[in-house]
């Protein structure tokens, strides 16, 4: 158990009584949990439990009908994607959401767009601040490329890459923003054992080296139990468990949700 040895700081994200519905469909009902700084927080649950909706609420793609989100002490009714990105929340998607027409390098550079301040007229003449920024950010992006070991594909169009590498590029793009919180939506889905091990290593490295808080959705229970500090369990949009991996594993309701109940 490496999880218990890691540092976990104060609560930086707190969700209170979040409810989200689409028409008559209740995606999330009255969910509250918190995330501490520097920890790896997993969200698990059967398909359709509302895990991805939860991430979409955190970074403002969805707006919950009820509840509040407290991020770094600021209480908000809801987030919007721009504000979430600006305050340091980055994410990856369940189905790869890379910019398919662009190279790996451009994809990752796009991750730093918020940090680029040059005016478009400066960019058009490629002079002064525009040129300087482009070089500075390139250097930073190359660090991330080194970190994730994707040097050999930096000029390749992302559409030509195999699935596992695409997932890695998506992680790189999220990291490029130097986020304080990283939301990962099934980062290991559809990978083979080796790719999963690589991905686990990268996630833990990010967490340890940069101190990035990680909120992760994952179906591979081995992975979840190994790398996360605390786990929240959702089922049918309701929270049914919350605690350390060991607590969750022995929770009766959680076991029932996953294995079914005898009638």
């Amino acid at each position, binding site marked *: 158990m490496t999880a218990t040895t890691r540092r976990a700081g104060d609560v930086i994200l707190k969700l209170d009584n979040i409810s989200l519905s689409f028409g008559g469909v209740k995606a999330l009902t009255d969910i509250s949990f918190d995330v501490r700084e520097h920890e790896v927080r997993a969200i698990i649950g059967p398909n359709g439990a509302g895990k991805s909706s939860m991430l979409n609420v955190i970074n403002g793609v969805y707006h919950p009908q009820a509840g509040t989100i407290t991020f770094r002490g600021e209480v908000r009714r809801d987030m919007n994607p721009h504000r979430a990105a600006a305050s340091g929340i980055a994410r990856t998607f369940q189905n790869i959401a890379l910019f398919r027409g662009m190279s790996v390098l451009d994809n990752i550079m*796009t991750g730093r767009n*918020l940090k680029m301040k040059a005016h478009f007229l400066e960019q058009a003449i490629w002079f002064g601040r525009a040129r300087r920024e482009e070089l500075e950010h390139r250097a930073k992006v190359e660090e991330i490329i080194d970190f994730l070991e994707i040097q050999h594909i930096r000029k390749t169009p992302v559409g030509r890459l195999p699935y596992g590498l695409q997932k890695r590029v998506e992680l790189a793009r999220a990291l490029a923003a130097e986020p304080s919180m990283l939301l990962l939506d099934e980062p290991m889905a559809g990978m083979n054992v080796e790719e999963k091990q690589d991905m686990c290593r990268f996630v833990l490295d990010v967490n340890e080296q940069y101190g990035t808080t990680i909120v992760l959705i994952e179906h591979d229970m081995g992975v979840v139990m190994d790398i996360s500090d605390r786990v929240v369990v959702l089922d049918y949009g309701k929270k049914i468990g919350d605690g350390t991996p060991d607590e969750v594993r022995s929770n009766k309701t959680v076991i029932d949700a996953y294995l079914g109940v005898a009638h």
Partner: protein
Amino acid sequence: MLYREAGQFKASYAEDQQIFAIRQDRIAVGALLVFAFVVVPLVANQYWLSAILTPLLIFALAAIGLNILTGYAGQLSLGTAAFMAVGAFAAYNFVLRVPGIPILVAFVLAGICAALVGILFGLPSLRIKGFYLAVATLAAQFFVVWALTKFGWFSNNSSSGVISAQKIEILGYTVDTPAGKYLFTLTIVAVLALAAKNLVRSSTGRAWMAVRDMDVAASVIGIRLMQTKLSAFAISSAYCGVAGALYAFAYLGTVEPEGFNLDMSFRVLFMVIIGGVGSILGSFLGAAFIVLLPIFLNTAAPLIEHGLGLQMPPGFMSNLELIVFGALIVFFLAVEPHGLARLWQIGKEKLRLWPFPH
């Protein structure tokens, strides 16, 4: 063997981020610029300069404009000619009503006017995408032509909205020869093409492409969709506006609103599609293809007719031209849907390896 980058090492990111990172490319581009700026005006005759090369460059500029919007930002538009018309009539009115205004200032202001109109008709893009947006931009096409014809003020109350563009004067020197107009056009197009290339390789261009490829992911990164789409409409329309002003001032001299019709919008769209969606080079290739092919067919047809000793009914040849033209477009799209720019790129990759297969 000639086209090798072996031995050319890049020691800094600045070197790696050059537009033409391979030495041979830089030499070729330099040679092409010298050819276009020095050799062509000296050797080309009046017909080539004023009836072929100048409009080719102007259409290339319009195609760059549309490519920014459709190729890079992914917003389909059928209003290109309308934005060109705005540019042409705006430049005319600035020169007419502001005494002593330098022509280049009038062109810049014309571009800004077109950009504002572009933003206005870009507003629907915040809600609708794809074909539906294309239909919405049709509104621009019809509205602008209607407004320019209907309100006499725009054309200084001339009949049916015809305007005669004023002389191009730069620092007291009047540009009125075909070679002068060609060089005037070439300079503007070259500068604006370089600016467009710089834009699309910087954060503005990456934001456009991000919105084109995956808008949800783009917004999660912090890219503001509204701002990005509207900036694409503005800059694209500004390019089209300057192209329209050149069309009136350096090419035709006399234009009417009806000249900027839907046909012309489609023509520019075809240039973008055939040249290469999302490529500045492709805009030039596409414009060259669409402008030069009819002329080529026109010259080739009588030769073939004569060579085969056939007696064709009159008018048959001009129809045949259209058929061949259409067939070639379909052929190109089937063989290489990413356009001439992609063919060029594939050719270069092959040339890098030649004479070895791998």
